[in-house]
């Protein structure tokens, strides 16, 4: 477990790190339209995880290979890995938008 000071949580979809009140107040800055957790603490807890590993600060998402590899599109603090599975409706929402849900935890080649 990472020693974390303020219990940052990671979005299960985009792995951005925020604390729970930020998620609650503003939702996920990247994928709010699929996770729709703004305003619902329950939803936030469902769609985010405290089990994450490694932190990335993405500064230049366009240039950065790290951002590309991690599929991070915007600036911010992200987790390298996030453990957890989002609720099924989120996965459905992603696929309905033509996306593919990729676990932030899986190891791919």
């Amino acid at each position: 477990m990472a020693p974390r000071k303020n219990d940052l949580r990671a979005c299960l979809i985009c792995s951005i790190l925020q604390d729970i009140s930020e998620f609650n107040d503003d939702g996920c800055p990247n994928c709010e339209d699929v996770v729709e957790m703004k305003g619902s603490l329950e939803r936030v807890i469902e769609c985010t995880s405290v089990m994450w590993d490694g932190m990335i600060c993405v500064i230049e998402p366009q240039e950065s290979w790290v951002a590309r590899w991690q599929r991070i599109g915007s600036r911010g603090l992200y987790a390298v890995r996030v453990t957890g599975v989002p609720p099924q409706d989120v996965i459905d929402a992603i696929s309905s938008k033509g996306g593919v849900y990729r676990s932030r935890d899986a190891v791919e080649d």
Partner: protein
Amino acid sequence: MSDDEAGNSSPVRARSESPAGTAEQQREKAGRKRPRVADPDEDDDMGDDTANGSGAGNGKGRADDEDGEGDDDEEEEDDEEDDEEDDEEGGDGGKRKAKKRKRRPKKFRFLDVEAEVDDEDDEDEEADDFADVAEFIEEAPEEASGRDDVAHRRLDRSRGEAQMESVEETVARLKQRYGRGQAAKYDPDSDQVPQRLLMPGNGDPNLFQVRVKAGEEQNLITKIFRKVFSNQNSANPFEIYSAFYRNSLPGMLFVEARGAAPVLAVLTGLVGVFLSTPPKLVPIEEMAPLLKIKKKDENIQPGMWVRMKRGKYAGDLAQVIDVDQITNGVAGLKFIPRIDLTPREKRSRDKGSNGKALGGNVRPPSRLFAYEDVRKIYGRGAIRQTATSTYVWDGDEYVDGFCLKDLKLNLISAEGVKPTLEEVSRFTGDEGETSRIDLSAIADANRDIGASGLFPGDKVEVYEGEQSGLYGPVVTVTIDVIAIKAMNGDVRGQIIEVPSRSVRKRFELGEHVKVLNGPNRDASGMVVDVKGDVVTLMSDQGEQEIKAFSKDVRKAADIAGGSQAKGAFDLHDMVMLDSATAAVVIKVEGAMLRIMDQNGAVRVVTPHEVTARRDNKNFAVAQDSNGNDMKVGDAMKEVGGENRSGEVLNIFRSIFVFLFSREILDNFGVFVARAQLLISVTPKAAANDLSKLNPMLQSQLPYGGASLMAPPTTMPNKNRLINTPVVIVKGTQKGLMGIIKDVQGEKARVEMASNNKVLTIDLTSLKRKDTRTGTTYPLDSAAAGSFGAPRPGGGNYDINPYGQMAPPNGGATPAPNYGGRTPGGAARFGQTPNPYAAGAGGFGGGKTPNPYAAGAGGRTPAPGWGAGGGKTPGWAGAGGKTPAPGAGGYGGGGGKTPAPNYGGDGGRTPAWAGAGGGGGKTPNPYALGSGSGAGGRTPAPGGSMYQDPGTSRYGNGGLSAPTPYTAPPTQAAVAAQTPATTQYSAPTPYGAPTPYAAPTPYSAPTPGVGLTAPTPGAGAGPSHNGAPTPYGAPTPYNAPSTSNQPAAPQASDLPWDWALDFRNVRVEVGPSTKAGTRNPLHFQRGALDRQIFGYADIAEGESPHCILLSDPTVTADIPAEYLRPVQPTAPGQAIIVINGPDGIKGQQRTTEYLNEDQWMMVPDQSVGEVVPMIVGGGDLCRIWQS
């Protein structure tokens, strides 16, 4: 194209639907969440924007700007997300992105939108302006109605492109666009590309590894983020693209940049970064793995066993009740609390402020929560009881005594928990309540080993899942899946694959199994119960029940035997129970050791209760009863007790000897004996004494007294000298006192009393010092030294006939010395004290059957005799005959003296004296040796009969002895002197080597003895066989005794009362052999003549109590004078020598061969006898009951 769409649609919405306030809110939010991008192209854009925007902003009012900002903001986000599409379009993303709302309002403020359009017209070849145009169009859609061809073409083109997208995508996009105001848009595209296409290439920035302080990684990342962010608008923004750390790589940061310089720039000034080691370039092929590292997850599930990592419960086992892993990172645990029931100064009250410091250094014991106990200590108010018999105390909830608590996952460890049965049993506690915790949970925790512990052929059963209940042998094993051949169910006979974690080993009751792991490892036994994963087996070794997890058990045919090496201790290893108690492992029982300690007590211990003794087998030495060394591995035999023999396993403190014999069943053949009670059964024992190896010498002793060589000049037993207080009488150290610590040859190592040094000094320079009296004696006269009064110098040896042999023996044998030593020795050996050695006082009570055995026999430096004497059970007579009981020593000495006739003579003398009932005034020379004893005894009997059960008729003799020798032993010397001279003056046969030849008048008075005491010399015939002894006198009586004795005359030298010295012999009744008896010649008028009796005991007076052999009911008390020995008639008969020199008389042997009336005996191996004893038949008597 999305931008176009956005341009076409959203602005309208934004304008029409979004109130300014909303937009503002959005902007703020976006500003917080989405920091501006520091764009390298900023400067150019600025120029462009300024140029482009000059017209565009013209027509826009201030109020519009607000809206415009909001829109721009959204737009920008779109831009970023749609980055790739933009690239496809060929648009310059950087430029487009460069539109910054902070600048734009300024432009818009002054620029006409129309002009912007115009500008765009001018620069329409710049694809990158396309976006700008769109935005401007967004700003003022109304004005766009007048767009030109270019705009139309562009629109057409983008529409065409948009149509190329899938319908759903378009819908989604539109939807996203519309929903834009509420939510960030999810971009599905970024997830489409397979990961492998994202591998880094040459064009990508590099990763640099930086060393940082471990634990500061996360801090540093956020610091870097803030630093870069705050510098983005400065003149020199940091040109790094990203930075990250991994938990699994502590002390490292990775910064992505196009060179080391920006990395250094951004890290400079950050605390915790070790810039002393320059950033290291990460090779391109290692970049992806850095991000791919995945720590093995601890997947915590309810029912699992975990251990707590920190605090007062560190290491304690807990069971997971529920898990909130992902969301809260906690697990509900159930564990046994550690409540401090002895708080110091209400320490607990401080807990709130003090936090975990409560425990202090003392960890309270782990025990179940007990309401009463806690209430007593902390008061009723501290505990809140809830409805369902749960208590809340100190913020924690307690159910059934257990504490239920949510713990953060980082405080618990699920790896390698492996709860032991003991721990789990504490959880399960008493059966009822807690049996709900099924043992499979424990086994679950241990399961990973279980799978790998499966081997093809093991019988398993499936206990969960679809195939539950199936069982059969394992066919193949892989990591997660095993194939079993089903033995039951519908699939019988088929090979079924099942998850390995769903199976457990199956054991039938009665199967013989072996435990492979756990505390009972290597135990084996029979399965008596199988409950879930727990197999109960009855141990082969200890007959106790052993519980083990089935995964730890295998079917096995072998029995864990006691002979196998097990762990730290092997069979027959010596272990220490404590510093003073040693023990030997006599059996290894699984994990337990059965040991026998030095006192012979057997117990079972666990290996950790004992400590291994360092292997000293090569050095452990002890002295046996002969003073010979014994070592580990020697074959030894007990000299007393049960006469067990065995091989020495180990020796503790040179006293306790552990032996092992295969023939002993008790205690697995191991027994303990004192070293001093052992004797070697190997000829080695003789090696110390050359005289014993000399068959000539030995054979001579009994017979050829006259030809005996002088006793070998053996050294005094040097060991005797050890610890002797001495004074140095010669040399530079003269006058100093010390204690002999060691004797080496002719030198002794003397520990000086004065300066604590150890000096090596010639023995000749030393004299024994009596520490009490201060008198000194020669070392050799150790014996003399023990006398209460010293002999008058060494000269006494010269006048003492024994003097010639005294020196050699002096150190060891002389009776007085024994007096001092033997009792001591006896005490040590735990044997009965030698009454003789004890001195006069010992007579009465000394019932030892063989007083000399321990003392003289064992010790005498004349082993031949000594041993002989010592071995004479029941024939204390050897000594007994010797007038000197002290003769234990002396008897031996006498026995070996060059004048063996003395021995014999002496031996008889007192007897005779006794017989004569003479006043016992005999100036028995041996009284010298005997000191008090002999003298006392000699006269004492006075014809009275000797009740001594010790078979020595002297047993009580001393009691009434009116002789000077009754003096206490300390005066013995004084007494001794007298006889010493007396004996010389006595006209007795000392000088006569052939006293036997003399027709000793039976009635001849001994000098000094006025009575009928025979001359001492009389019977001494070295060839006692044919010797016309004094007893020859009554020969006439012998003549008529036509017994079956082949050599009546020979028997005639038997004293008439020989039988009183023996018992348990066969006797024949015949005419009285007592000369001058007043009894009738025939007992009961010859009614019992020639009948053979067994002689059991002495009834009264001199009458042995005899039992008729042929009819045990017939008993009679027959006076000894009517009894004569039953001689052996055939080989193999057990006999006892009833007549002869001291060393011979009393010996028990088995006849082996008859030659001309001489019987050759079977050599007695136990005493190391090599040369068989040969005794005339007349001197033998068959033993009645062997």
